[in-house]
């Protein structure tokens, strides 16, 4: 069976891809970049924002929208997860209840119960996503998922719910959800980090927890905002030697200006990279066979769309084989 990551069945050939990571690492921009790549490859792609703050829409220069999928560009749709609406839909589809609006109090109660037993809330999220996969309306669903703290309970919710709910329809439906979620040909998780201590730690811990606590396939790791290498070795030697006071004086004469601040800037950039490098290496060393993409720090952000386009180019360069 071809594994994810091989050319014959790449990440974008799957049906359901969760993108997660610590807060602030750029989950939404990586999701949007993958969405752009996949839609450009001609796949009908749905991006679902789970903790919807509308970041994906903003990145793609669109207005935030709701639960119903809204088309953003050719082959690319977006929806915001809403557990209450997911529940309404569920009741409508499975109970065939004619007047769903009359279920208002029930929905509220359900929401209330869902708060008490987190598995219920999460099964609605996962259930809706799996339902969309089963209905085959999309080629790919990309999930801008919750951050590292909550994703495992989401992915493990079918398991959790079958422990809590020992009877009932929900219990019966867990089985087909698991078939989708735990099939590595269909579903995987991408964990995003930035090259700093705690994002990398969280990514590694999450990778481990996904493996131990769920049966979902870890598709790839992404290190976002990697400082580009400033100099080659010979260039760095030259640069460092240039900072000698005598040399600096000559340079200042040549450019007829003080060069102190510029030197400070480059030294600072070198330091930043030096500080980040061990974290990237640590991730690579612990990743086992999981593919890794390093995405460069994008300096001039400007519009969201430009960032997404730059990121998608960087992604496809890194993962030519994988996507």
């Amino acid at each position, binding site marked *: 069976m071809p594994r994810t990551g091989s050319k014959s069945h790449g990440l974008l050939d799957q049906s359901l891809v969760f993108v997660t990571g610590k807060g602030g690492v750029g989950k939404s921009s990586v999701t949007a970049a993958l969405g752009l790549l996949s839609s450009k490859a001609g796949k009908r792609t749905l991006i679902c924002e789970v903790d919807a703050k509308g970041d994906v829409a903003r990145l793609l220069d669109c207005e935030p929208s709701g639960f119903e999928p809204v088309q953003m560009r050719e082959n690319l749709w977006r929806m915001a997860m809403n557990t209450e609406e997911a529940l309404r839909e569920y009741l409508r589809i499975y109970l065939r209840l004619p007047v769903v609006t009359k*279920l208002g109090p029930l929905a509220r109660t359900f929401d209330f119960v869902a708060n008490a037993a987190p598995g219920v809330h999460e099964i609605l999220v996962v259930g809706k996503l799996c339902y969309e996969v089963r209905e085959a309306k999309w080629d790919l669903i990309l999930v801008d998922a919750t951050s590292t703290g909550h994703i495992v309970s989401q992915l493990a919710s079918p398991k959790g719910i079958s422990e809590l709910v020992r009877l009932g329809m929900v219990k019966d439906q867990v089985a087909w959800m698991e078939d989708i979620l735990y099939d590595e040909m269909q579903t995987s998780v991408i964990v995003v980090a930035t090259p700093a201590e705690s994002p990398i730690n969280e990514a590694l811990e999450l990778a481990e927890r996904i493996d131990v606590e769920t049966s979902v396939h870890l598709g790839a790791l992404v290190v976002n905002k990697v400082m580009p290498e400033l100099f080659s070795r010979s260039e760095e030697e030259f640069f460092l030697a240039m900072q000698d006071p005598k040399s600096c004086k000559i340079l200042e004469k040549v450019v007829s200006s003080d060069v102190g601040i510029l030197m400070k800037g480059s030294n*600072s950039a070198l330091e930043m990279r030096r500080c980040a490098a061990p974290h990237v290496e640590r991730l690579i060393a612990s990743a086992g066979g999981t593919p890794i993409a390093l995405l460069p720090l994008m300096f001039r952000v400007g519009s969201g769309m430009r960032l997404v386009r730059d990121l998608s180019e960087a992604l496809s360069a890194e993962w030519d084989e994988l996507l």
Partner: protein
Amino acid sequence: MTGLGELLEESKIIIVAGAGGVGKTTIAAALGLAAADLAGKKVLVITVDPARRLADALGLSGLSSKGSRVSPSDLEKAVGHKVEGGLYVAMLDAKSSWDELVNRHAPDVATRQKIFANPIYKNISSRFVQSHDYIAMETLYEIYRSNQYDLIVVDTPPSRHAIDFLDAPSKMADFFSSRLLKWLTIPARNRLLMGMFKPFYQVADKILGAQFLSDVAEFFLLFESMYAGFVERAKSVAGILGNAATSFVVVASPEPVPMTEAEYFASALETRHLHLGQMVINRALPQYFRDPAAILLANKIQDRYETLAKEFLQKGSSLAFVKGNKSSPARLEALAERVLLEVADSFLNFSGVAMEEGEEISKLPVDDELVTMVPHLNFDVSDLNSLGKVAGYIAWNGEAPTM
């Protein structure tokens, strides 16, 4: 001393809030260290999930919801002088805090044991993430009342919105006093009423199964016996937020999303008449990246790097590293060109980001004296030494004479 330095003197409780990934835990720990050192206070820092190396440095490797003291000699080594106060750290343990709550409020041993055995309770206490906000506050309240510390610094749990923390006690009170709760517990209480709600139960049974519903009902019934004490408690817990000696420190990194979140939080504090002590902008690029003369020079080099490199090599032909370079003149020239261009490019890259950051910061609708900047640091804050440096920025804006 900065406004934060004063805040450390005056506050008894400091709550550190902000979006995920902005460095809340580091700032909270640094605030604690600064208060122990500069204000000579006995300080407790309550944190949720510190990065592993920082946790190790703080002696938090074993999970401890009771405060444990950071070794005074380690502290002394880290800051270079004897620290007058004491630094204690505790890690939030939601499960055992819930258990303590139940122990405190359960009317009898039997109820307590039933609660502990209830599957819904087990789920709430260990996995119900929203409950961490409440538990953090509950823990804070309990420690505050014990009067063991001069200052308690709370690192708020990561949540979808920083604001959730403020609403946690009232949400928790609502949760246990809701009318819906009474619905759920009807079957166990009243067979007659049960008839009225039968359609509801039929649907719920079909979806969730009777066992689950009865677990839920049992849970709420059990909690009902603790209800009065629990809601009272949630109110008192909420009360300490408005305490005159309680301040909020809002942390953001200078990017649009965290800054918006911080602004939103600050305005929420205002509407609730809570005290915004200080805003900390963490990891801002150094000011010099916005220096106009340097930007001008970088542009000039970008335009004329070829000529400038040639001139530099000519005028600097006697420099050891030029003279000693074994490459051909053409290759040496190309090398010098690339270095000059890279220096200029990289400077302009960073100054672009620094400008955007500056714009974000200037948009903040907060007085300047309420803003403390902690620059982007070229080291991981993973030991007491580096934490001391952050503490220096916090208390003195980086101009600490001793720290």
